[in-house]
Every structure is written in structure tokens, then in C-alpha cells.
């Protein structure tokens, strides 16, 4: 790969920059994605080496960390040897093992970036970043602010640069201290290239310079780039572009330099003696890197081998007809993995399914009194439908601590003298007996359980916000059919089919949106669950379904629910039946859910070291719930931490396995999908969504300082769109340390149950999907449906894999929760 952009083209470079900048949206739409998405066109190991050498990221664990893992048995020697053998060939084993265990390499995570722009300090003795950034960030944040400042930005609805010009024209207080920068600003023809000509002089260095400059504050630049591309990510829209930001920053730089040296200084490019290495010049994979890569693979396969060993030991059940008490659909989310296990354990007649938590119904949702509508389906989908909540007397409680008037001079004076003292009492109460408050984000508030939803489109409703209100009957039938077929639930319906969405609750949590359902664009899945149930219960829909081969008996009803993954509570919707027998059945099932939640909370609690495992189940449950309302709890729940697997197949394949809440689970029945059509749709969503979550966790964990958001304890909310440390800092995209600290950085292993040749054809249907696998950003294994043999995808083809691991058979898994806080091995549950 050789980049030779000798002729500088602004558009190309800006495009290039935007590609590499972080692409995290404003906080309200937290969506997980591969942090290094820009490198995804390369093989994983090549990509992380380049990212490290170019940008100075730490892209894997360090050598000493791997060696520690080896010593503690978390990397198995057998697996390590296998990895060396497959990567380096047979004869090399001892030599590479020696290198990995004893080789002397020094870790070094210094990148090429900033080498050019550092010369300002070295040669001109001027610290441009220190002089410019604080003002630039503050101004930018004021411009983009969504509702913190009391005095809103005075110029409205113009572009960023136009705004600056407008202000500069009408002020006694210029942006600049010297005349030249001001003149350049007012000259509308002045372009990036002209400013670079003044600052850098040498055209071959322009691109490098801009990269250095913008990557000195990747957080803000990335945010600007995201808002430029998706203006709807802000409720209060702003027009801004990376181009404008660059011009403004370049002007501020010229201003600083003019101030120090007058207008006669030599451009940077003409003063440096040795040109820095080209930013994107070839990156050599050194022996040290190879060692790291071998370690990483050995680390991953030590775990994968356990899982695959476990799967190969699961006994194939007889196809006897079981009595099904009820069925329940859950999100594929890794947090539902243990909940399902408990439901099935408590009521062996329960059958559970996993599917992305928007349940195949894509739409915008507008709550009662809402001024906007929010997307509640996977982020890349653009729905055409709107669902409205309708209810009388909906009120929201207020908290004066967030009110503008507390900050004003005279009202502030009154307040400090009066309700200021109430704050002290509130603080006391909140610290000693944490409770719900208006500041809490509660998943059940997403939709009022007594509200009506406008699910059905009768043809007479006017479109709203350019969207059709509700779905027509055929549109409903299409969605229900697709969903049921993809999870393999096409017959044997139980009397009640629960559709359980999920959401999370927390307080003092700036990343709250990242805790909700990822398939619903970071919102709770309650509306989707209810909408799907409405559709599936619709008589006309059922008729259409019948004509398409899915017969839902009249006695079956679909029932929506929401599982709060933080509080481990469940809320059911529309569950008043006229039929007493149904009510009875539902009450019985509710108890099953309740018991399962209790045990689920206990399983989760083992990771929260601050909760003593010796507490009684009830007290422990209370402690877990308290976390969601405690101001001082930076870890209300651990979200997707430890995720490592995505299992696509029938439940039987994994039902007896203890997977420690590490698996995304999508139900899929290959027997009704011989061509792999449903599989394609599942993979098309699972690879980017689960892969994205997994890789974001991976990178935030290995380099929490540059690719993650660092510890959240000092975070300061900037303009409601991001967080920074302190008030002068850059935005911090990525995940905070508290979310990822217990995560083991391993790539996702997708396990799909189908014939290897079908899986191969399926993933090759689109290049975007194939890229995930062929470039090794996620691992893929196919389980042969007939004989449960395991086939590993490698370098474009499937080869059979023989796991070594023999799982322990465990009767009472819960005894491990009292002593173990780390990841547990894969067990076979009796």
C-alpha cells in the first residue's frame, strides 16, 4: 500500500480524514461500532499493526500482560503450540515458543502522527495546541450545545464559518489579535490550501499536517464530522463541517504565530531539515508484532476451544414431543443469555428464542407530548413508519437542580438561601437510601404501560414528519412472518408467547444510551415488543400467515414485556384477559419469570465485588436494584462486558452449556432454511452489530486512554453531546474504563449451525459481509447440523476442527458464584 498524494486535493484529504476520525454519535444515540472501522479493509493483524504504528494506539494487550495470562493458565500451552504450528509451520514450534515466553522486546506505542506538527514546539518554541485548543473547544461546544448554556449561541442556523464571519463583522471583541488572520477570514475565497501555504509551505506535507492537527483532538473533530454527515443526530440541528473547523483552526494558528513573530516567519515546511516519514507509508510487521499476534490468537482459541469442546459434548436430544408451557422471545443480547437459562431451568416446559430486540419491526416512535420521534430499530435502517403513544395526563417530574435559574445571579441568590438547604437533605437521603428520582433514566419510562399505540394504519391517517403512521395489515403480516421464520418458530405454538424486549436503568450515567437495546438504536425495546404482539394477535394478519403456511392457533396469544437488565425486573403489557384460564396461566408464568430474575441477579452480582455473596437472595436482589438508582454507582450493570460469542442455531445445541453470559444468541432453524436466506439476514445484522460491540469493547479495553474514554469519574458533560475530562479537554469517545475493565479482549466467535458449504455461500453474498470474516475481524465456525462436527472458517474455506477441551459436568452452578469473580470456564450443566 503506497500513498503518494503529491498533488494536494482538499476534498480527498478531508474525505480521508473523516474516514479515520472516530465516528461516535452524540450521547443520546450511543451506538456501538468497530473503533478502527477505517482499517477494516485490511486483515485484522495487519490493521492493528498499522493503526498502532501510524496513530500510536495500543491495539493489543502488552507482551507482559499476555505472559501473565499464560502463567495464570488463561492461555493454554496446548493451544499456543497449535497456533504456532498453524501460523509458522511445524518445525518452528520451539523457536517461537521461546520468543513468546522469553524473547526480549520492548513494547512501544509511539506512532508517526504528530511528528510534523511537533516542530512548532521544537523549532519555533511555540505551543500552538495549548494556546488555541481551550478557546477552540469552548467556542465549538457553545456552537453545538444542545441545552446546557442559558444564553444560547447568538447566531442561529448559519454555517460554522459564516457564523464566525458574521460575529467578527459585528463585534468590538475580535477572534484574532493580529490583522492578517482577520483579513484572511473575511476573504471568502480563502481556502484551506492558501492557509496551509502560509503555515506549512511544502505541498507534500499538507496532508500530514492536517492529520496531525485534527488528530490532536480526535474527539471534537470526529464529533464535527459525524454531525456534518448526520445532522439529525442532534435534536437542535446545527450546520457545521470539518472543512470549516479546519479553516478556523488554521486561522487561529496563523494568528498565534503572527502575534509572536510578526508576519514574517518561515513556513514550517521550509524550516524542517528532515521530512518526517509519510504518515501512511508501508508499515512493517516486526517480529515483536508477530509475537503479539500469536499470543492474541492463543488467548482467543484457549477460550473458543472450551466453547467448541462444550458444544461437541452436548447430547443430542431425542425429537420427542415435549409439552410446551409457554414460549418467550428475547433479544440476542448477551445479557439475556443467563435469564433464558434460568427460565428454562425453572420451567422445563418453557421454550426460549433469541432474535434482535427490535423484533423485526422497524419504525420511529413518538411518545406522548414528544416534540420529536426516535428511531427504534438498528441504526443503519431508515424506517418509513411512525408509532405514536397516546395517553391522557402524561406528566414528567422536574428536578430544580438542573434548572437554569439556579445559575442566575438573583434567582440563584434566592435559591441558595432557601432550597439550597433542601439539597443537603436530598443528598443525605440519596446517599443513605438511594431511590428513584427525576434524574434517573428508567427503562419503564420509555413507554407508559397504560398507553395506546397507533400500530395499525387504517388508511385515513395523515402522514406525520413524512412518515406513515402505523402499518397496514399486509405490512404487519410480512414482518411477523419474517421474524417467526428466522427463529424457526413456525408451529407448536404455546398458549402464550412472550415477546420480551430489554432496557436498562441508571443514574449519573452519561453513557446511558449504550446500556439499552443496541438493536433499537440504544433505546428500550418495550414499544417494539408491544407492536409485534399487536401484529401477531391481529386476526387478519393471522389469516394471511395461515395462507403462507404458518398457522397460529386461536388460543395462542402474543404478550409483550420489557426486561430491565440493570434492575432485573420485568413489566408485562396488555395482560388483562377476559379468559380466566389465560389469566391463571399468565400468573403462573409470571412467577417463573420472577424466580428467574432473582437468580439472574445473583449470577450478575458475583461480578460486583462490592456486593457480598453471602447475603440472602432477597437482600442481594435489593442491592442489585439499588445500583440503578445510586448516584455514586459508576457500574449500575456491566453491560456487554466479557462478550465473546455469537451463537446462531437451535437452542438444543447450547441448552446444557454454561456460557457465563458471554454469548449473543440468535435462534435459527436450518432445517426450514436450506438455502440460507434467513441465515443471510441474521448474519448481515449480527456481524456488524455484535462484531461492532465486541470490537468497541476490545479496543476500549486494550487502550482505554486513547481508544476508550478513560475513567468516568472525572467526566464533564459537554453540550449534552459528549464527555470530556475537566473543562478544557477534548471529547472522549469510546467506552469508559468502568464498562470494560472486566472484559477479556478477544474477538467475537460466530457459531452458525448449518452445512459449511451453505454458510460459505451465505457469507459471500455481499462483499461488506464477507469482509468481516475474510479479514478476520470476527471468527466463524459452522456446526454441521447432521453430525455436530465443527468446521472452522480460515483463509476463505472451512476445515474441520477438533476441540481438546473436556467440560466439567456441574450440578449446582450457583456455588461458583459465591467464590468466583472472574470468567468461569464452560461447564456442562446436569
Amino acid at each position, binding site marked *: 500500500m503506497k500513498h503518494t498524494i503529491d498533488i494536494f486535493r482538499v476534498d480527498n484529504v478531508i474525505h480521508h480524514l473523516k474516514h479515520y476520525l472516530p465516528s461516535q454519535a452524540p*450521547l443520546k444515540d450511543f451506538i456501538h461500532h468497530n473503533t478502527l472501522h477505517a482499517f477494516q479493509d485490511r486483515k485484522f493483524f495487519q490493521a492493528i499493526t498499522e493503526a498502532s504504528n501510524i496513530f500510536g494506539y495500543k491495539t493489543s494487550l502488552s507482551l507482559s500482560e499476555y505472559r501473565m495470562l499464560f502463567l495464570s493458565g488463561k492461555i493454554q500451552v496446548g493451544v499456543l503450540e497449535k497456533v504456532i504450528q498453524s501460523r509458522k509451520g511445524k518445525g518452528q514450534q520451539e523457536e517461537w515458543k521461546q520468543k513468546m515466553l522469553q524473547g526480549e522486546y520492548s*513494547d512501544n*506505542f*509511539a506512532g508517526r502522527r504528530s511528528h510534523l506538527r511537533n516542530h512548532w514546539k521544537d523549532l519555533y518554541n511555540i505551543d500552538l495546541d495549548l494556546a488555541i*485548543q481551550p*478557546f477552540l473547544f*469552548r*467556542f465549538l*461546544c457553545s456552537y453545538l450545545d444542545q441545552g*446546557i448554556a*442559558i*444564553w444560547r449561541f*447568538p*447566531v442561529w442556523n448559519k454555517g460554522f464559518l459564516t457564523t464566525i464571519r458574521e*460575529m467578527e463583522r*459585528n*463585534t468590538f*471583541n475580535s477572534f484574532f489579535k493580529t490583522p492578517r488572520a482577520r483579513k484572511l477570514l473575511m476573504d471568502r475565497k480563502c481556502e484551506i490550501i492558501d492557509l496551509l501555504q502560509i503555515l506549512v509551505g511544502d505541498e507534500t506535507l499538507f496532508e500530514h499536517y492536517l492529520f496531525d492537527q485534527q488528530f*490532536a483532538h*480526535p*474527539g471534537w473533530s470526529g464529533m464535527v464530522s459525524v454531525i456534518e454527515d448526520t445532522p439529525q443526530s442532534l435534536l*437542535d440541528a446545527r450546520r457545521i463541517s470539518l472543512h470549516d473547523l479546519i479553516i478556523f483552526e488554521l486561522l487561529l494558528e496563523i494568528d498565534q504565530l503572527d502575534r509572536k513573530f510578526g508576519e514574517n516567519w518561515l513556513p514550517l515546511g521550509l524550516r524542517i531539515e528532515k521530512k518526517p516519514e509519510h504518515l501512511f507509508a508501508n508499515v512493517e510487521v516486526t517480529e515483536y508484532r508477530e509475537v503479539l499476534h500469536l499470543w492474541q490468537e492463543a488467548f482467543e482459541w484457549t477460550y473458543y476451544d472450551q466453547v467448541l469442546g462444550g458444544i461437541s459434548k452436548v447430547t443430542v436430544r431425542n425429537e420427542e414431543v415435549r409439552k410446551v408451557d409457554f414460549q418467550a422471545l428475547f433479544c440476542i443480547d448477551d445479557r439475556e443469555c443467563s435469564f433464558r437459562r434460568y427460565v428454562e431451568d425453572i420451567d422445563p416446559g418453557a421454550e426460549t428464542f433469541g432474535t434482535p430486540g427490535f423484533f423485526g419491526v422497524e419504525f420511529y416512535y413518538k411518545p406522548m407530548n414528544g*416534540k*420529536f420521534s426516535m428511531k427504534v430499530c438498528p441504526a443503519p435502517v431508515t424506517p418509513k413508519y411512525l408509532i405514536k403513544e397516546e395517553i391522557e395526563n402524561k406528566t414528567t417530574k422536574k*428536578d430544580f*437542580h*438542573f434548572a437554569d435559574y*439556579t*445559575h*442566575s445571579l438573583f434567582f*440563584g441568590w434566592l*435559591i441558595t438561601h432557601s432550597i439550597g*438547604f433542601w*439539597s*443537603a437533605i436530598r*443528598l443525605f437521603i440519596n*446517599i443513605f437510601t438511594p431511590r428513584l428520582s427525576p*434524574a434517573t433514566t428508567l427503562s419503564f419510562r420509555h413507554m407508559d404501560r397504560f398507553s395506546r399505540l397507533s400500530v395499525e394504519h387504517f388508511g385515513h391517517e395523515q402522514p406525520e414528519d413524512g412518515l406513515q403512521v402505523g402499518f397496514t395489515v399486509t405490512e404487519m403480516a410480512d414482518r411477523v412472518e419474517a421474524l417467526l421464520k428466522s427463529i424457526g418458530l413456525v408451529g407448536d405454538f404455546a398458549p402464550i408467547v412472550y415477546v420480551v424486549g430489554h432496557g436498562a436503568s441508571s*443514574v*449519573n*450515567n452519561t453513557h*446511558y444510551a449504550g446500556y439499552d437495546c443496541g438493536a433499537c438504536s440504544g433505546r428500550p425495546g418495550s414499544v417494539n415488543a408491544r407492536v409485534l404482539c399487536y401484529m401477531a394477535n391481529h386476526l387478519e394478519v393471522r389469516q394471511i400467515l395461515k395462507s403462507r403456511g404458518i398457522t397460529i392457533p386461536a388460543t395462542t396469544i402474543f404478550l409483550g414485556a420489557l426486561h430491565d437488565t440493570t434492575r432485573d425486573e420485568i413489566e408485562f403489557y396488555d395482560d388483562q384477559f377476559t379468559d380466566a384460564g389465560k389469566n391463571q396461566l399468565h400468573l403462573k408464568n409470571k412467577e417463573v419469570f420472577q424466580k428467574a430474575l432473582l437468580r439472574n441477579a445473583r449470577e450478575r452480582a458475583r461480578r460486583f*465485588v462490592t456486593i457480598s455473596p453471602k447475603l440472602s437472595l432477597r437482600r442481594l436482589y435489593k442491592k442489585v436494584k439499588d445500583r440503578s438508582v*445510586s448516584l*455514586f*454507582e459508576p457500574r449500575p450493570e456491566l453491560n456487554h462486558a466479557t462478550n465473546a460469542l455469537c451463537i446462531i442455531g437451535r437452542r438444543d445445541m447450547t441448552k446444557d452449556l454454561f456460557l457465563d453470559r458471554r454469548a449473543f444468541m440468535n435462534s435459527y432453524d436450518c432445517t426450514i432454511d436450506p438455502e440460507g436466506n434467513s441465515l443471510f439476514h441474521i448474519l448481515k445484522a449480527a456481524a456488524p452489530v455484535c462484531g461492532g460491540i465486541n470490537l468497541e469493547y476490545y479496543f476500549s479495553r*486494550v487502550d482505554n486512554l*486513547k481508544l476508550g474514554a478513560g475513567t468516568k*469519574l*472525572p*467526566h*464533564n*458533560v*459537554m453540550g*449534552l453531546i459528549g464527555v470530556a*475530562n*475537566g*473543562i*478544557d*479537554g477534548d471529547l472522549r469517545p469510546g467506552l469508559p474504563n468502568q464498562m470494560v475493565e472486566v472484559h477479556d479482549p478477544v474477538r467475537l466467535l460466530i457459531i452458525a449451525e448449518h452445512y459449511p458449504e451453505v454458510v460459505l455461500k451465505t457469507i459471500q453474498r455481499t462483499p461488506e459481509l464477507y469482509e468481516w470474516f475474510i479479514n478476520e475481524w470476527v471468527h466463524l465456525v459452522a456446526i454441521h447440523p447432521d453430525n455436530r462436527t465443527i468446521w472452522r472458517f480460515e483463509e476463505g474455506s472451512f476445515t474441520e476442527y477438533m476441540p481438546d477441551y473436556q467440560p466439567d459436568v456441574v450440578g449446582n452452578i450457583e456455588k461458583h458464584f459465591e467464590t468466583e469473580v472472574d470468567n468461569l470456564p464452560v461447564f456442562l450443566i446436569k
Partner: protein
Amino acid sequence: MDKFLEIFILWPMAAFFISLFLPKSNEKLISGFSFGVVGLHFISIIGFLAYWISVGRGNINIQEFSLYKSENLHYFIDFYFDHVTAVYSLVGSMLTFLVITYSRIYLHREDGFKRFFYTILFFYAGYNLAVYAGNLETLFIGWEILGITSFLLVAFYRERYLPVKNALKVFSIYRIGDVGILLAMWASHHFWHENVTFEKMHDINQVQSHLQGHALFGVFISIMLLLAACAKSAQFPFSSWLPRAMEGPTPSSAIFYGSLSVHLGVFLLLRTMSFWEQQLLPSILIGTVGLFTAIIGASIGRVQSSVKSQIAYASVAQIGLIFFELALGFETLALVHFAGNAFLRTYQLLVSPSAVSYLIREQFYHFESKHQNIETHFSKKLEYSLFLLSIKEWNMDELLDKFIWKPLKHMGTLLSFLNSRNVFYFVIPTYVIGLLVKITSYSIPPFMLDLLPEIYAFLGLLLVFRAYSERRNVFVGWTLILMNHFWVVLAISFNDTLSLYETIYYFTGVIVAGLLGYTVLYALQKKEAGIDLNRFQGHVYEYPRWSAAFLTACLGLAGFPISTTFVGEDILFSHISYDQVFLAFYLSLGFVISGITLIRMFARLFLGPHVKRYHAIAQRSS
């Protein structure tokens, strides 16, 4: 009862020392210990207050032990308890207790868990010392402890650039405030002819009678107190440090900069109110500064787009109003205002992360696309200008830069002809000449002799300036600061006879600290080639123990209340007569700048992003 009060004050200090020895990995023990200590303290304060109210709320003064006594100086620790102390200690203990409780879980698994708790305990000890102080000297000890703990908590995330940079900024401004207290102490010594207690200061007749004939001195003392109060309470022109101090974990920001530390300037004014209230000019000044800060603080606060800086400026504005209330003589109102402001801002800071979800929800349900506010009605030009001015924080930083930091740097640059090779050729001979003159003083004409103290103190000050601008050689910087102490002592000895005892008292601290510093620097240089003061090097990553030792040495050399030098400083000042304002000024300036220089030296060597890149390093902009 008195004994009880003493235990009270010294209890947190004892707890701090104990906490240093708790095992680092035992979170439960560390946080439980702090919780117990401060909780008990809080409860006993409530008990004591109940008792105190029941016996008639009389003022209590306890003369504690003497630290130093000679014929012209009696340096003693003194405690005082009245309604002001009552309010401050109650609010302080309650908030500290709540914040510690809050942090027990909040800080879980954080690097520096123990560091956080012992720093808070140290802070609490200093706070108590300050609010229970019965004289300026005692108050100053508490004041200095607050300064250093502030530095440590702002720089809590010491491996990043901005916290360390901002910690230095906060520390430097606190040091400016220290000049005020040092000079106020010196002047009041001459004003009262003794080491005056607050109890005496509260005797209005006494104040009145002393003010007659010393009116100018009275004004001088008051203005110095105001300077100290402004720096500590972030009033004009020092306000910009307050939002920048919000770099530590949120609870520490809440307790320091939301509530307690930032209201200590108010406390200083409350404490000395009976004194400055008797004088018109200082009262007017205090009122003006307060009102002006209130107005610009509110205008800056209105444009802040980050939650914490918004709270910081709102608080600054309210404190401005408190100053104003004090100037008008409303003492009780000011006390109530302090408590209300402290509670409100602490809570607001603690719930600040919730602002995202809460305000976005508000926006979602109540959005109006165009906002109206007062400023919309201004002319466009005025509106834009005011907006930009507020975004630029009324250029307060530039003001300080222009009038304080730039001239300092400039002075140092002027002296840059003194480099590591030749500097000692100038310094040592001049010193030897001085010594000879001292020994043979009879042969010098008297008018020369009168000038010598100022000349030598000034030369000493130049050494400090030179050290301040030294960026290359750590040893030169260290030596220059060390030598300043010798020059200062020589200068004073021209003035008055310093007894051997006094000299030894002063130098013990200096020399021990100086040697400790050399040892660490030498060891560090042997390990790490190329240590300099040009950038932050973050060596604490590999050498946490050396870092602690060097910090101790810096504090010792800077005359912090950890060694005899602290008292020694006061001894020196007592030898400066009332007409030698310049001498007093040189001396205090020297102490202040050497303090800044030393802490910066420590920060550059041990804090900030690590120079070695074998582990993950944060962006400089974070």
C-alpha cells in the same frame, strides 16, 4: 470542654497519619476507616454544638502550645470557637462525611483509591485547622494544607497532561493569595505589637485604638487579607482557576471547588470582619470586588456549555454576592448564604452526569427552536461582543499573564546570562562579600548598612527568578532556590541580630529538604538520562516512592508547615521593621515564587504523560 475541642481539631490530623499506613489493596479498610473517622467527627460536632448552644454560645479561645518563643516573637498555636466556626465546621464535616460516603463506592477499583482517601483526610485536617484557628499563624497552617491537597486532588489523574497543568495553575494562584497572608501577618505583628489572636481582634475598642495613628497599616492589612480571600475564593481577577480545578473525580471537585475550599476566602473575611469593618476603604473595596465578580461571573456562567464550568461560575457569582453582603455588614446573611451555596453546588456537581439524560428528556418534550433571552434584545454588536467576552472569560487569564506571569518570566530571561557554568561565579563571591561585610560591619558607613538588607534580599529574589525560568538543568534550579534561603537569612541578619538558635531553627528544615531533594535528583538522573524541566515526564509511573520523597523535599524547601522552616519564615519576618515594606515584599515574593518553582519542578519531573511509551498514554488534549 477545652480539652474536648482540642481532640476535635487534632483528630482528623491523626487519622490522616494513620491512613498513610493502611494497606493499599484493602479498599474496605481504607474507606471504612475514613468513613468512621469523619462520621464520628460529624456526630461529635453536632453534640458539641448542642452543648455549646445550651451553655449560652460564648466564644471560646484556647491558647495551645508555643512553637517558638523569644523576646520579640511568640509563635503559638491558638484555637477559637464562635458562631462562624460553628457554621463552617458543621457544614464542613457534614459535606465531607457525605462525600466520603459517596466515594466509598464511587472510587471502587480506581487507581489511587488510597491516595484519594488520605488526601481527603489531609484536606479535612487542614480545613479544621483553618476554621478553628485562633490566630493568623494557625490559620495559615490550615490554609497551606488546603493549598497542597488541592494541588494533589486536581492532579489526581497525574498521568494526563491537563490535570497536571491545571493543578499547577491552581497552586500558583493560591500562592499569590499566600503573599497576602504572609504580608498581613507581618504587618499585623507591627500593628498589634504582638502575635494577635482573633479574640482580641474582635474587641472593637482595641481595634479602634490601634487604628489611630496606624490607619495606613490597617488598610494595608485589610487589603492583603482581601488579596488572599480573592485568590482562595476565585474572585476577580482570579476566577478562571475554579472551573479548571474540576479535573479530579467528581466528588472531590464537589467538596473542594463546589463547597468548602472555595468558601475559605469568605471565611477569612468573616474571621477578620471586626477588623476591616472599622475602615471605610477596605469595606468599599471588598464590596466592589464582590459585586463586580458577581456580575461578570454570572455573565460568564450564562454562556458555559459544560455542566461543571457552569456550576463553577454560578458559584463564583454567588460568592461575589457574599463578599458584597459582608461589605454591607450582613454577617448572618453571609453565613446562611455560604451554607446554602455550599450544599446546592455540592449536590449539583454530584448529579452533574445526570444532566445528559435529564436535559435531553426536557429538550425532547419541551423543545423550542428559537430561544429568547435578555441579550436577544441588545443590539447585535453588543450582543456578539458580550457573548465573545464571556466565552473568553473576560480575558482574566490574559490579565494575570500580562501583569504577573509574563513579567516574572521576563525577569528570569533577563538573567539567563547566568547559566549553569557561570552562575556560581557570580553568586558565591557576592555572598562571601556579604558575609565579610556582616562580620566586619563596623567599617561600613551606616547608610550603606541600612540598604544592605534590601539589596541582599533583592539579589536573593533574583536567584529565585532565575530558578523560575530555568528549564534545562534541574540541579541549577534546585541549588538556586536553596541558596535563596541563605541570602534571605544574610539579608535579615544585616537588619537585626539573628540569634544562632533562630538561624538553626530556620536552616534545619531547609538543609534536610535540600539534601533529600539532591538525593532524589541524583538517583533519578543516574537512572534516566536527560531529565530536564522542559516538559512533563511522568516518572511517577516507575518511581512512585521517589516521587513522594521529592514532593516532601519540595514542600520542605518551600517552607510548608512540615518543617521548622515554616516557623523560621515567621521569625525572619519578625525581624523586618514596619518601615521596610520592600524588604517584606521581597521576602514574601521570594517564598511564593520559590514555592511555585519547586512544585512545578516536581510536576515536570514526576507528573504528566510518561516519556516512556511502552504502555498506553493519554492524548495530550485530555
